[in-house]
């Protein structure tokens, strides 16, 4: 079963990794450092609400949150059991990692749906 799923999980991993590589530095720099520290003017609540009204923006946010979570799930799963040699826990680790990514994706979908 997992053997058959692996190629698809790898695709999610790759897409998520690419998205994170291109877009996370700028989002993290602005949202986590530049805005809180006042280096740049943060967008107002109203401006952001206006922005997320647009379906393209919401789709963007969904993709940008969900796929990197799968990126994490895949990478972290391998790191855990290769790094710590937890071969007897393979299934448990896989379920926890991909499961967490699925939950995150569901929450993201729900939140963005209600933001409209």
């Amino acid at each position, binding site marked *: 079963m997992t*053997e058959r799923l*692996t*190629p698809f999980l*790898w*695709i999610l991993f*790759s897409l998520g990794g690419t998205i994170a590589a291109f877009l996370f530095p700028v989002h993290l720099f602005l949202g986590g450092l530049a805005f809180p520290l006042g280096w740049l003017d943060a967008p107002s609540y109203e401006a952001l609400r206006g922005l997320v009204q647009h379906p393209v923006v919401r789709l963007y946010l969904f993709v940008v949150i969900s796929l990197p979570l799968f990126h994490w799930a895949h990478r972290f799963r391998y*790191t855990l059991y*290769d790094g710590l*040699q937890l071969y007897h826990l393979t299934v448990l680790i896989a379920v926890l990692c991909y499961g967490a990514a699925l939950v995150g994706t569901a929450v993201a979908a729900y939140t963005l749906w209600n933001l409209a």
Partner: protein
Amino acid sequence: MPPTIALDVIRYRPERNEEPSFQTYEVPFRDDWVVLDALNYIKDWLDGSLSFRWSCRMGVCGSCGMMVNGQPKLTCAAYLSDHQPGPIRVEPLNYFPIVRDLVVDITEFLRKLTKVKPWIIRDQVWPVEEGEYRQTPAQLDTYRQFSQCINCMLCYAACPIVGLEPEFVGPAAIALAQRYNLDSRDEAAKQRLKILSDHAGIWGCTFVGECTQVCPKHVDPAGAIQQFKLTGALDALKSLLLPWGTR
């Protein structure tokens, strides 16, 4: 006194030792000597019982691979002068069972190589009269790099997955599979994909990338594996979207 350099060499004689230990030898230091020359000096003048493999002394046969100061190297290409002032640690290749001293067992490696069917497979073999299977320089170019492997196993000694997962087919064998997959005369890419689409094959690899770093022939096994993964993933996607397509 002419200059010398020390070599810390792993010794393991199964009939006498429980486990391997280091023995230090002092050998003449010469600018034009490689580690293999030093080992041969030891064997000829200091200790005839030291065992190691070598043959061509010019990076072609792939039999002299050892760990030199912890890095997998062809000892015939590892200059003493690059490892000054010593002592230089010489150990058998990582992750392989040690048969004796610096000699490792390669049975599993050979089994893994043949597992990927590294030969040209055709659905229909032409009779000899029809002439040879032709190939353009551009077609040759797509796999040339992967065909340069000399089976030195340095990439295996560099790969932690090989150590962690004894069944993992490993870098050179997957690069070799890719070499035949990309060959315009071959028609068995699907078969090899099937053999390698599991955790002992391409999906066990986490792209540490050290195999490519240590390869003396610039084969780039890490690249071969990633490209293989991409093919495998697209193939899986295709068979999901077009389940009635050719299987």
